[in-house]
């Protein structure tokens, strides 16, 4: 049985999809990834699809699912490296992948994740100070 490796890097999980996905493989990835987010307390998930030549409605739905599931486990998802032909096809198909963050390449995706996580932490800090002030 094929399996897509999920690598951990600090607070992030990295997934590089190197093969064309078939349905079973995509469903397994969805389950594995959500498990891993829970197990490792990851704050961000980076999915590299630069080697994927086709994303159909099923695959698009899985990507959307991964993003929403991670979101309720308090992790952000960024999809990087989408091929231009895939982007054209997705829009024509009618699947705009709303709610999924994207970046052009791994580096930009990493920066986007970092900035998103910093922001949420800053918000938390601000809430903290506000609470402290009220307490005083």
């Amino acid at each position, binding site marked *: 049985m094929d399996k897509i490796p999920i690598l951990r890097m600090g607070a992030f999980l990295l997934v590089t999809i190197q093969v064309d996905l078939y349905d*079973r493989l995509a469903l397994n990835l969805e389950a594995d990834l959500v498990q891993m987010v829970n197990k490792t307390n990851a704050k961000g998930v980076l999915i590299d699809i630069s080697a994927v030549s086709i994303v*159909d*409605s099923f695959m698009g*739905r899985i990507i959307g699912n991964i993003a929403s599931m991670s979101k309720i486990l308090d992790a952000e998802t960024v999809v990087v490296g989408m091929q*231009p*032909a895939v982007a*054209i096809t997705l829009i*024509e*198909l*009618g699947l705009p992948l709303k709610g999924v963050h994207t970046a052009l390449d791994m580096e930009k995706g990493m920066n986007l994740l970092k900035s998103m996580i910093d922001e949420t932490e800053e918000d938390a800090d601000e809430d903290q100070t506000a609470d402290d002030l009220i307490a005083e």
Partner: protein
Amino acid sequence: MILSLNKDTIQILKEQDVVFLKNRVKETAVKIKMGLVNQTRLLTACSELVRNMMRYADGGVCIVEVVSSGRNNGVRLTFSDRGPGIPDIAAAMRDGFSTGKSLGLGLPGSKRLVNEFDIKSKVGEGTVVTILKWANG
């Protein structure tokens, strides 16, 4: 006048057959020098339709053809199954309509991705979907 030049029949019964079919379609599209974006459109449509066939009819047959009209070449795919058939084709062709638990983009989305799209279905007998994508167009 559309001429059929090359015809291949592929049985689709299990998930491995789907991979084989996609590879064959890809090869065929490359052979007639279809551009990358059109290849992706054709393969995505193929992927949607073959999934429908697997999900609703437990498989079927796909015919892969190279067709020619004047100076234009294209790939025609015919998906036929002996599944339950579609009672209301107009509804099935609407965005967001699905009797399964999917997004309901398969049929209308595929239609937008190809040049010609034809669907015939009889309840209790099966469904035939034919799509055609020209190399340039």
